[in-house]
């Protein structure tokens, strides 16, 4: 059982056991799942890296730490995490939003990256879920339940996150008129983006493998491939599709407007919002039961509902 660090105790005291409360991170996905209800008290999660264990490939970090700051620290050891970097975005925010990075094919999913979580429950007490090891099935999986829960079941103070090695060579390339499916079949492709015409690929791995993939891709492109700094500008609205739907996005009725599709994944960034997705009534009922059990008075992040994502 854990000895909690002092910052967690202070955070719990600030959250208290009464009245509507929410945690604001960087605010980069602040309207996800609805606006915060008026009158909700805002508290800040503690920040700072508690322990980075490069040989264990884990990092214990407080929720208020900016992801970019965390990754800067990990980069010195050639590592990073699956958490997406957004301007000012925090570790806690990334976990609660649950949205994976555009490079998820290489980095893995956010929901698989959280190994242990310490959080403040609705009654103000500190709870811990998961374990301090890279593998664990002891008891029910609180970590996966909390990822993507938008702070509606508990308020995250500290997380133990799996790290992944940075590739020996990493390159973003733009491939005019390339076949996105062929790019997806490259083993070093950590991201394949497609706007209906061109393909952007993020290749990460051993130099020899990246080179081989690049020469394969060059043959498949309509024009010469070019090195670019990163992904193209992504349209503002996030759609959750199947990989198959993403690969044929925009064909036919052109719904969604301008788009950039994550090939092999199913996320599509589009200029138009995704039409509301129907929720099966028994699933909605089950979601409601979880909220009621974990937060009987509805004080945690009122106004938000993960069923209304994205």
């Amino acid at each position, binding site marked *: 059982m854990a000895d909690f660090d002092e910052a967690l105790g202070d955070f719990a005291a600030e959250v208290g056991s009464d009245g509507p409360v929410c945690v604001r991170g960087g605010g980069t996905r602040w309207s996800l799942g609805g606006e915060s209800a008026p009158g909700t008290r805002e508290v800040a999660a503690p920040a700072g890296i508690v322990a980075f264990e490069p040989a264990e490939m884990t990092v214990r970090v407080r929720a208020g730490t900016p992801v970019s700051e965390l990754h800067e620290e990990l980069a010195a050891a050639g590592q990073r995490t699956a958490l997406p970097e957004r301007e000012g975005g925090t570790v806690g925010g990334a976990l609660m939003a649950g949205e994976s990075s555009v490079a998820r094919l290489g980095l893995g999913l956010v929901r698989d990256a959280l190994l242990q979580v310490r959080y403040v429950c609705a009654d103000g007490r500190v709870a811990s879920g998961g374990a301090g090891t890279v593998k664990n099935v002891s008891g029910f999986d609180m970590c*996966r339940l909390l990822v993507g829960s938008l702070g509606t079941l508990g308020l995250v103070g500290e997380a133990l996150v799996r790290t992944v090695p940075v590739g020996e060579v990493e390159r973003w390339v733009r491939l005019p008129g390339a076949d996105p499916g062929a790019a997806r079949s490259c083993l070093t492709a950590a991201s394949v983006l497609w706007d209906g015409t061109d393909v952007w690929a993020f290749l990460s791995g051993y130099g020899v493998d990246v080179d081989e993939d690049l020469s394969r891709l060059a043959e498949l492109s309509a024009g010469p491939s070019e090195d670019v700094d990163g992904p193209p500008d992504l349209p503002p609205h996030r759609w959750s599709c199947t990989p198959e739907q993403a690969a044929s996005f925009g064909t036919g009725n052109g719904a969604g407007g301008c788009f950039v599709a994550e090939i092999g994944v199913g996320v599509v960034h589009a200029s138009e919002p995704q039409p509301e997705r129907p929720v099966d009534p028994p699933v909605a009922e089950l979601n409601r039961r979880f909220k009621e059990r974990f937060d009987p008075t509805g004080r945690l992040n009122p106004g938000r509902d993960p069923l209304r994502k994205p």
Partner: protein
Amino acid sequence: MVRVMARTLAEATRRVLGSRRRDTRSPAASPSADAGDAALVADLEAAIGADRVRADAAARYLASRDASIYREGNAGPVCYPGSTADVVACVQVATRHGRAVSPRGAGTGLAGGAAPLGQPVVLSTTRMDNLIEIDLDNGVAWVQPGMVNLDLSRALAPHGVHYAPDPSSQAACTIGGNVANNSGGPHCLAYGVTSAHVLAVEVVLSDASVVTLGDLTAEPAGYDLRGAFVGSEGMCGIATAVAVRLTPNPPAVRTMLLCFDDVSDAAATVTAIIADGIVPAAIEMMDQRCVTAVEDFAQAGYPKDAAAVLLVEVDGAAGGVAIAGERIAAIARRNQAISVRTAADDDERARLWKGRKSAFGAVANVMPDYYLHDTVVPRTRLVEVLESIYEIVDRHDLLVLNVFHAGDGNLHPILAYDSRVPGADERVHAAGREIIEMSLDMGGALTGEHGIGVEKREYMSRMFSEVDLDQQARLRASFDPHCRMNPGKVLPSAHSCSDIGALRASDAAGVWG
């Protein structure tokens, strides 16, 4: 052909297990067994057909235990549903009769998770073993829960893909059981355990409603109830269809056998490989006693004179595999490896893996009984952890064979013993307790892939606080407010809400007394 083979292996496993303990108990011996269930059985038969319900002593006896040493399970009528509708009907009938429901796959679990408590209606998924659909465009296959893990990978082979989690029992264990236990296997080091490979699950809840948790889109809306369900040991509902992720077969694979004349050098090599930023597909370790048992049993070509061997596999694109292989060999030599061998071809590779996967069967040649732990420790502390295990086991005058997933710190110390020797059971339990305590003190976890079941249930309070356990109980109660699904598992009795009420009064004393 596939099916015949799996059946044979399952039977072989059962025979080995059966020989491990001479047991005179049988459910027929308990007074309330058959007669009181006549109305229940009649209703179950009316709901799903008489050929799908068995209430005889033999069927109930077989359904009362799993592959653990737990022997207190007590099954009520055993149903063999063929469809989701059958499962719904069984849950409805059980509820009407005030009985709990315990799902069951192949019964290969090692923690008593499938051992029914309080004579619940047992739902065996063995007749729901079909591959429903392969969807290559979305990289997913829908399967029924009773499908055997290895049968799935064989069915997928022609498509150049596989299902990544590969427990040692994969020739017998089912996908539904894997979902219940969030099962692992050697290749989960790089690829992740079951939860990372399940995209959606169709579940029958305790109120007999059918829900699909998760979907095939990139970011399903709502709470990750799919994630909350996987690993819930049958206590949140019954999976009736599972959408599993298909993993493309790697174009290049290199399997290496690294031998050491000191266990500590092998453990240090594991730590150094991970620290170097290499992510092998698997790093398995066996100590000398285990290697000897395996060689005598499977003739895999391991050297019996090595104190420890590491079986390391890297896969991926050819260039990187070659580089990683060279780096691993260099690390091993720096750590005093006495030999470094790379499998020359698929045959040799298969033989090396056969040795690893037959380790548990091989123990039967050493001692009639074994007790297996599954703790996880930080992989940077393997050297001191192994030293502690040998010290504990010596002190209790027992025999230990170590075979485990070293790359993620997941230990499997096998305490081999003969339960006919007076006092042996007590010594095994005492040593097991010390191994668990030591693992937790090192910052570890109770179980890495076998689950808590009943065997590790009372240790949960050693790993989690009252608040933590209360939160877990809420997760369970959100799915199953009346604790009707596989009651009495995972959570220590103080946290299992109305579980006791869900058990039959006649049996409760036997379970908790």
